[in-house]
């Protein structure tokens, strides 16, 4: 396959072609046990410590459906405005791979538990926020595979590896796969809509409490299907499926890249091959994976070891009653409560900090203060560490406490920042950091008096001006005191002490 060296710009690409997208998102459910057995789903155990005959696919073992997983699937379906099947079956998807214990995956094929729904996503445009309705084709249940670790190669991929290690702890963890209908939006907005959809879905999943949906841990995995058709054409072009696009930013970048790459290929008269493609975070490119036709006959048939799932209608309605406020409605409500501008709110949403800010405010902070910390030093730290904003070691309660300390006059903004950095560095709670680093504002007159006297002695000419009634010169003395106290002096008190001393 010829390598395309120069790609048209995105704008050039969408001048000639309309992209059509389809998103397939896998969500690992946060159930305590696996989809078809009683093994723990806890992350981080020793390899192959959380396995049993069923999830290892040992001869004679049988699956039993996890009711909580079905419940989660139904709630996700309802939250996506789907219809819930009255009767649906599991199917076997047959293919050989060492990390598949049975060499078939129990999934749902032509009878998904939820189907035909939609969700609205909002994207910012030059003309303000626009809402797009994304159609949901289906949401179905399946089991995860194990993990292969390829050892001895340079890339961690199987190519060039000397051997592979298999960990089946993940095998059998319940997954929900959510598939959209074809997404056709104004071409220029396609990458942003893709990102907004995944963002919206992640928020919804978290609001439902069915998964933490942490993309960096693989709890939420995104495959992006992209095809192009000549501007204005009605029939779809050949699509590619870019696998494992596992951050919000990557979703946008991968879609953008695929649009440019396919445009280049079509421009040069090269047909698009229906294939899976690998996403490379580092280069921002996709490369060809396996060609679809070669390996796609999964020989699906109904899983004979399981009975059909037939959720009672009153159960479904009962679950409908447990749905949280839809994320969009929740955002509008919170924005109003917090008094944020559209721009401010968008920043909070994009940072994935809505819940954190909400909790911080609930713990006693004001809205502006809560936003400032989460979107400021915390977000930067998370970015540096390549971690989630909620996993850098600071809690909403910590942030609220810092705000309280500022309000009480114990900290000023500069000291507060050092306290937050201390918490992020794992030095303990805000109060512990204040004590350990000795960061509290000094308002004790004896200590401040010494510093004030020192400053007056060091700057007799300034002192003379003040004595002469030039109060504008006080700032210079305060600055000297602050410098001498490492910024910890209570500036207000320092001013009072200077004035007391020099207005005799």
């Amino acid at each position: 396959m010829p390598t395309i060296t120069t790609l048209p710009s995105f704008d050039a690409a969408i001048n000639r072609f309309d992209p059509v997208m389809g998103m397939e998102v896998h969500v690992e459910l946060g159930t305590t046990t696996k989809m078809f057995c009683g093994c723990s789903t806890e992350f981080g155990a020793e390899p192959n410590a959380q396995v049993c005959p069923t999830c290892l696919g040992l001869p004679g073992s049988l699956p039993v459906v996890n009711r909580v997983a079905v419940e989660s699937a139904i709630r996700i379906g309802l939250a996506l405005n789907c219809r819930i099947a009255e009767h649906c079956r599991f199917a076997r998807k047959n293919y050989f791979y060492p990390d598949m214990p049975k060499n078939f995956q129990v999934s749902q094929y032509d009878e998904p538990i939820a189907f035909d729904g939609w969700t609205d996503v909002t994207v910012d445009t030059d003309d303000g926020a626009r809402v797009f309705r994304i159609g949901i084709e289906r949401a179905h249940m399946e089991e995860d595979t194990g993990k292969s670790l390829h050892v001895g190669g340079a890339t961690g991929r199987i190519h060039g590896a000397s051997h592979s290690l298999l960990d089946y702890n993940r095998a059998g963890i319940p997954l929900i796969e959510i598939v959209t209908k074809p997404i056709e939006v104004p071409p220029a907005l396609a990458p942003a809509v893709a990102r907004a959809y995944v963002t919206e879905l992640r928020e919804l999943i978290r609001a439902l409490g069915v998964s933490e949906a942490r993309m960096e841990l693989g709890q939420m995995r995104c495959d992006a299907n992209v095809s192009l058709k000549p501007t204005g054409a009605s029939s779809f072009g050949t699509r590619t499926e870019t696998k494992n696009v596992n951050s919000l930013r990557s979703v946008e970048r991968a879609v953008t890249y695929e649009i440019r790459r396919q445009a280049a290929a079509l421009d040069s008269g090269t047909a698009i091959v229906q294939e899976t493609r690998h996403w490379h975070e580092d280069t921002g490119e996709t490369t060809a994976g396996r060609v679809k036709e070669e390996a796609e006959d999964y020989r699906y048939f109904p899983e004979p070891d399981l009975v059909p799932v037939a959720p009672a209608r009153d159960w479904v309605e009962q679950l409908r009653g447990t749905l949280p406020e839809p994320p969009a409605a929740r955002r509008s409500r919170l924005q109003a409560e917090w008094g944020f501008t559209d721009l401010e709110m968008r920043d909070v949403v994009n940072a994935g900090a809505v819940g954190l800010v909400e909790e911080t405010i609930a713990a006693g902070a004001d809205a502006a203060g809560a936003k400032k910390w989460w979107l400021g030093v915390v977000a930067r730290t998370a970015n540096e560490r390549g971690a989630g904003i909620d996993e850098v070691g600071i809690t909403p309660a910590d942030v609220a406490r810092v705000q309280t300390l500022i309000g009480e006059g114990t900290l000023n903004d500069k000291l507060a920042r050092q306290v937050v950095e201390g918490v992020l560095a794992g030095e303990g709670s805000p109060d512990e950091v204040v004590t350990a680093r000795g960061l509290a504002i000094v308002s004790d007159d004896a200590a401040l008096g010494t510093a004030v006297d020192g400053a007056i002695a060091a700057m007799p000419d300034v002192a003379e001006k003040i004595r002469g009634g030039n109060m504008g010169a006080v700032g210079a003395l305060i600055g000297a005191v602050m410098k001498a106290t490492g910024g910890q002096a209570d500036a207000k008190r320092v001013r009072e002490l200077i004035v007391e001393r020099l207005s005799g």
Partner: protein
Amino acid sequence: MSAPELTRRTAAELAALVASGETSAVEVTRAHLDRVAAVDTTADGGPGVHAFLHVAAEEALAAAAEVDAQRAAGERLGPLAGVPLALKDVITTADMPTTAGSRILEGWRPPYDATVARALRAAGLVILGKTNLDEFAMGSSTENSAFGPTRNPWDLTRIPGGSGGGSAAALASFQAPLAIGTDTGGSIRQPAAVTGTVGVKPTYGGVSRYGLIACASSLDQAGPCARNVLDTALLHSVIAGHDPLDSTSIDQPVPDVVGAARRGADGDLSGLRVGVVKELGGEGYQPGVEARFHEAVELLGKLGADVVEVSCPHFEYALPAYYLILPSEVSSNLARFDAMRYGLRVGDDGTRSAEEVMTMTRGAGFGAEAKRRIILGTYALSSGYYDAYYGQAQKVRTLVARDFAAAFEQVDVLVSPTTPTTAFPLGEKVDDPLAMYKNDLCTIPSNLAGNASASFPCGLADEDGLPVGLHVMAPVLGDDRLYRVGAAVEQALVAEWGGPLLDQAPAWETS
């Protein structure tokens, strides 16, 4: 009591002897182990019955000693406590290898007991060992076992049926009074018929499949085998019941099979409506089989049953439908044998990829019949062929179930011969799979529909002096009806014969 006497006893008698202290479970077990040693292979390694693939003498004696200790401690023993049993080697046991008759699982020790194995142990039954079968329970003669065929105790040159030939032959050669079989298309009933023993395929879902190595999941059913009807019923009640580990297990009370067997032994079938299935008889059936079957039908009438002929028009499509559904499920169920986690591994010399090792292992580890069915099933499920093959077969399956439903509106049980012929010579049909498949013509419909069925001895064919089975079919969860009919027929025939049919088997084993 002498060992030969003990091995000739019924399971119910042995349990009573152990419970009363007239003998001990250890003594009973030892007698049967001695019998196994004497007849299963001969001293020079020549042809014995070869019912067992693994004899667990030590474990069996320990289990028996445990029963004796419980009795000594005054604990109440179950109705079959201390009775030895032969377990088909397709049911997992944590203390014995489980091979499914396949090279690919040779030496595999499962880390867990099947639910059936657990139930047997909990009831104090003594597992003597694991019995031979066609590889992954696919066959009608045990000739597909990777470890050599089992021989029919009535004639060592003939097949003992299959796939559960090992279990049936162990019973017929008095190596065990009880055995567990599994029945996917007749694998309990056909061996019972050709060895003169009793075999019951319970209602699908009546006995847990957890730990039963799957052949075809939607057809497989474990069931009891014995030399008489009451023993079979007692064993049935030990292994039946709901199992939360098997989603297809029925969560309903187990039919009173033991009560039915006792009532049936009164020999009164008045009020029972019996349907003779028109489509299961006539051309293609051995004359001696037909003759014994018609006598059995007459006998049912004499015992008070109303006998009518019933038509099940779709049964003629059952065999082809079965040979699409079964291989389809097999192709998927046997995919897990890939050398990655357990069992045979071939070609792993550090130079080959996982895919190559998988291919080589499966090539070396599966026998011809397993491969044939994997290929058939893979083809039938392929996109573009699914509707024409698997889809159509499922429709036939529905039609067969409707035939049964319609028939059971008219009658309480259906009857047919169990098999078209008596035991055929070893090797006769190994190269003719279609002829082999036809053995299961009468038994397959019940697997497709999931209803209960059984085979009971009804005499010997005139032309070869070999056993013939009466096949009785009952509705879903009508397992008790099988025992009522079987027990009534048994008491009449045993009276006529002057003893159990197996007393007429040649005494080849005395040495």
